[in-house]
């Protein structure tokens, strides 16, 4: 089979899984829906490997393969087909997406076990993966937008999966609307591209662009900025990031899926995919890189202060995506995508561990109420620490090699790009600190009641309540299930986490400077026309960067150890000392409040105004006048309003009848 056939199969299996679960929700017994969903994604992963093998078979210059299934909507000079592009970049993405998603599905099989919406959950989950695969495999901008919006919808459906929680439905709405803003950005980027280049097709457009545009020509910058609107909405970069922390309302494996395998990496993929435009518009690329840098620092500071376990990890995602955005924007494509991969491993692992911890705490997500879980759940403690080490960039882990390669590239590129190196290391310091803040707060210290109970073999249980509002909930459809599941007791969860822990440690060996450059060499086939791709730093410079990065990570971890373990009171003292800063950070720099005041309230106010003034006074006012006049006429002719209706209707019918009669007479 050809690579594109494998590509279509990669799409077909998750879609089939979705349809089976969607239509079979009533009849599928027990965990069947979960296993069907997992198998569907697993088969997609196998086919992705098939595609990889077939692509590797081709010469480096001939690895861009397209295939069309049907003409979707072509008219008036617009040619819109359902076609896919299988090239090294899309193969790389489908491998990560389907691979990590398989593990997340596996984890969910057990984790969501007692939820009454089990089949619905796996239907959405499969659809989510299908959408993401469609997004990365799409061969033209319209299909990209379709996949893009499907991902947005799937995230909406899963964020508000427990739809009887008000907080969940609100969070879903927020994610959806912000994603639609991104969609609109992409649509207009596509419009500009079509207007200038006359096609939506990737390869046509990318080959035509360098001849058509001058460097930094206004319209290319416009295209890039519009693409960035889409990318930043999806990848939760400033200023469109506010939906992601709220997205924690969904079940924990969903967070893993959104943050690791699907969705938020889409923006990074988009920038990488459309690199010919960004290389033609260096200004836009620099803007993108600076926003990435700002985001990574901003989100890291939020992660220092937030106390909700899942939200800390969410901010860490925003921050890590910032690194990737910096990477692909400055031309460190291979490094950016390498970091995307290692991040997928350790972020999925962190969320899965968090899920296990939250289960053990009977639904509590606040790290202030956690502690000493180390002995109660040793497996979770070990793998979560591995995840935190990878996140912090501890020497030898996957995150160490990938993140520092981006920063080394920035240092090597010259000009003002050293800013990204310095900013990146500051971010790395904060990252190491907050990563181990989680570990030390959750697993070290005095065991809390739930922890000691668990040590005696009893899993804590409390009536499910909304972690945000404290409302109690029943466990019927639309609320979390009754039972809790932890990795130590459920084999599928254990298996998924063990696999990811392995990958988080050893994923980095794919690309060790000087030793092997697997990802560099493989992705090159997608960046053949790039002027930046080949500008690698020397091996020595790479190792220098790695040394600095490793030191920074160790300092951060040591600082966290000092604050949270060696001298337990330090954190509280710091909060007292810097209360204003702390409040500022806990409120996430007041972005939500800002949008509330600047966007939401004015829009609602305009709506009220339209309703109360324009509609009542202007529109209905005219009507009232006219109706009064008519009523006056009606009074004159002694016809009640209803009589008037009837009279006019009869008149028309009579008129028609007369005309018909006339027609009959005339024609005969």
């Amino acid at each position: 089979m050809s690579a594109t056939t494998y590509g279509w199969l990669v799409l077909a299996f998750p879609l089939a899984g979705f349809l089976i679960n969607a239509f079979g929700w009533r009849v599928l017994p027990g965990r069947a829906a979960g296993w069907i969903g997992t198998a569907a994604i697993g088969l997609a992963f196998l086919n992705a490997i098939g595609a990889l093998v077939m692509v590797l078979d081709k010469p480096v210059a001939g690895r861009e393969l397209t295939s069309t299934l049907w003409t979707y909507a072509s008219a008036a000079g617009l040619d819109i087909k359902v076609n896919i592009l299988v090239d090294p970049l899309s193969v790389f993405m489908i491998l990560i997406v389907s691979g990590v998603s398989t593990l997340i599905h596996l984890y969910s099989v057990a984790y969501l076990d007692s939820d009454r919406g089990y089949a619905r959950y796996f239907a959405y989950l499969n659809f989510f993966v299908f959408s993401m695969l469609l997004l990365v495999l799409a061969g033209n901008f319209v299909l990209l937008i379709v996949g893009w919006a499907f991902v947005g919808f799937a995230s909406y459906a899963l964020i508000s999966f427990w739809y009887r929680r008000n907080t969940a439905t609100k969070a879903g709405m927020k994610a959806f609307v912000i994603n639609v803003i991104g969609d609109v950005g992409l649509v207009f980027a596509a419009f500009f591209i079509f207007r200038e280049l006359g096609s939506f097709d990737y390869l046509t457009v990318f080959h035509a662009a360098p001849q058509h545009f001058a460097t930094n020509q206004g319209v290319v910058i416009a295209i890039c900025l519009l693409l960035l609107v889409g990318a930043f909405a999806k990848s939760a970069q400033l200023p469109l990031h506010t939906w992601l922390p709220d997205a924690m309302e969904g079940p924990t494996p969903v967070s893993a899926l959104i943050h690791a395998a699907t969705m938020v990496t889409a923006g990074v993929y988009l920038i990488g995919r459309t690199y010919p435009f960004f290389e033609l518009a260096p200004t836009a690329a620099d803007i993108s890189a600076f926003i990435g840098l700002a985001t990574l620092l901003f989100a890291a500071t939020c992660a220092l202060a937030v106390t909700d376990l899942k939200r800390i990890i969410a901010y860490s995602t925003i921050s890590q995506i910032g690194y990737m955005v910096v990477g692909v924007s400055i031309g460190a494509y291979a490094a950016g995508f390498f970091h995307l991969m290692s991040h997928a491993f350790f972020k999925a692992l962190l969320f899965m561990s968090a899920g296990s911890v939250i289960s053990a705490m009977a639904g509590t997500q606040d790290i202030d109420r956690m502690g000493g879980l180390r002995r109660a759940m040793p497996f979770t403690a070990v793998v979560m620490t591995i995840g935190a080490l990878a996140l912090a960039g501890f020497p030898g882990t996957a995150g160490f090699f990938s993140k520092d390669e981006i920063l080394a590239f920035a240092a090597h590129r010259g000009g003002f790009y050293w800013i990204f190196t310095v900013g990146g290391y500051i971010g790395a310091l904060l990252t190491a600190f907050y990563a181990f803040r989680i570990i030390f707060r959750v697993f070290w210290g005095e065991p809390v009641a739930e922890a000691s109970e668990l040590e005696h073999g009893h899993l804590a249980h409390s009536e499910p309540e909304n972690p945000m509002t404290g409302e109690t909930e029943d466990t019927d459809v639309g609320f979390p299930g009754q039972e809790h599941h932890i990795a130590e007791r459920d084999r599928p969860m254990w298996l998924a986490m063990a696999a990811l822990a392995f990958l988080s440690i050893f994923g980095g060996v794919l690309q060790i400077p000087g030793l092997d450059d697997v990802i560099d060499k493989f992705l090159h086939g997608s960046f053949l026309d790039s002027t930046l791709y080949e500008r690698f730093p020397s091996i020595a410079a790479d190792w220098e960067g790695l040394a600095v990065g490793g030191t920074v990570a160790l300092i951060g971890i040591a600082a966290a150890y000092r604050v949270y373990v060696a001298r337990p009171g330090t954190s509280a003292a710091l909060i007292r000392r810097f209360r204003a800063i702390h409040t500022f950070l806990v409120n996430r720099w007041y972005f939500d409040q800002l949008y509330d005041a600047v966007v939401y309230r004015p829009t609602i106010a305009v709506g009220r105004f339209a309703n109360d003034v324009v509609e009542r006074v202007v529109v209905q006012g005219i009507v009232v006048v006219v109706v009064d006049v008519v009523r006056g006429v009606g009074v004159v002719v002694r016809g009640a309003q209803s009589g008037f209706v009837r009279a006019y209707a009869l008149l028309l019918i009579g008129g028609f009848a007369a005309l018909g009669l006339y027609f009959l007479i005339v024609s005969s």
Partner: protein
Amino acid sequence: MIQVMLWMPVAVGLLCFAAPRRAVPILAVAGSAAVLGLAIAVVAGFDTAEPGLQQTVNESWIPDLGVRYQLGVDGISLFLLSLTAVLWTAATVFSALRTPERRRIYFFMLGLGETAALGAFLAQDLLLFVLFFDLMLVPFWFLIGAFGGENRIAATTKMIVYTLVGSLLMLVAAIATAILASDQVGHLSFSLADLSAHTVSTSSQYWIFCFFAAAFLIKMPAVLVHGWLPDAYKAAPLPVLVLLSGVLSKVGAYGFLRVALPLFPQAVVHFQELILVIGVGGILYGSIMAFTQTNVRLIAGYSSIAQLGFITIGIFSLRPDGADGAVLQMVNHGLVVGAIFLVVALLWERTGTEDLVRLGGMAFRAPVLAALFLIVTLATLAMPGSANFIGEFYILIGVFQSKIVYSFVAAIGVVLAAFYAIRLFQRSMHNRKPDGIASSELSLRDVAVLAPLVACIVGLALYPGLILGRSDAAVKDKIAATCPRLPAGKPQPGWTGYAPIPVPDRCSSGHPEISVIK
């Protein structure tokens, strides 16, 4: 065939008076199903490449006045006929399963309405079009006035006042057009073919166009002339509302394509920006109103204003892509808004309320209803992957290439649509169920009505090319009418050939080849 299709509904309606009481609903359903079958047959027999009319009927009717009984189908009306048949079948089946009071007159009026709507889409004679256009109102006045809810008398009065104004203006304009053109045609003729071949002078076009535009805009309705909409939507029985919003609103937009563009090309170009402003205004105003309302009917009603705004600007981009999108969107909007009102009817039956504040949590006991409604909601907000998205995509790219500013403003409407549509879905289906309302799953008879509509929506989502491919030729023909006619001898930058001008403008075909630009 189209003759049978046109007159069958009213014939069946008359037959209802003769049939035994119990057989009336069955008869009505059978009649509407037969029309649907004929509509499908018309689609099947359609020649895609032909830009002109097909299946034409051309009989002399009132020779003294030059009025002819002229019917025909082209790519623009083809799927509007299908839409009419589909929605009428849905509404008839829905009503038949509930057997209303005074059923004979009810089903007769439905049949009369269908004939009138089909007639408006089929008519190729200006006066015939005007007659069908007005005839359409009669059954709806009856249906709302006699079978409606609270305040139905006031609502119908309001509707009459508005539409009468439009109708009379249109009648005057139609007669004026024929008389003014009679010098060139040689005799008095209302035939659209004659009138478009011999357009009237530019200055006359201006005021005549305004009269027609007023009638069409009121019918849609466009913003500021929508005063009749809230009351009529609140009062109309829901199956009637399906038709009112799904089909009747499209006749206005269709009128622009069928009458205004070919007959008044200079006026259309002259007033392009004005109509674009009205369209964009409708998008913004309708969207904003839609998310301040709590009455489910009004949310759908105001969203219709917004959607018809999109359709209007698509037509008045005066580019084939925009107008193609408009034709597609007319069908899409008819389907989704029909489905929404059916869902509203089902909600009403379950809860006795149409107020979002008192709704919620329906998905809990009625997951199938929620799933179907979700699909409809996503189509309403034009999510990529739905045919509505392709419709909006074509409309916006048309406007983008014609008058770029309006496309950006219209894009705000896209975001707002996401907000009000999801809000409508969430507030009715999600969150906790308020006390005092019941939630129960769809019964088989509900599925029988709703599921086929949703199937149409999904089917079109997979292959919107079905409509685009068939409308394209006719739409290009209509848009070409608004292009300046080059003196004979020079190659015309037409739709068939390659554009000689490298700069893409409204009147050159598609886009210059990329290879040309180096």
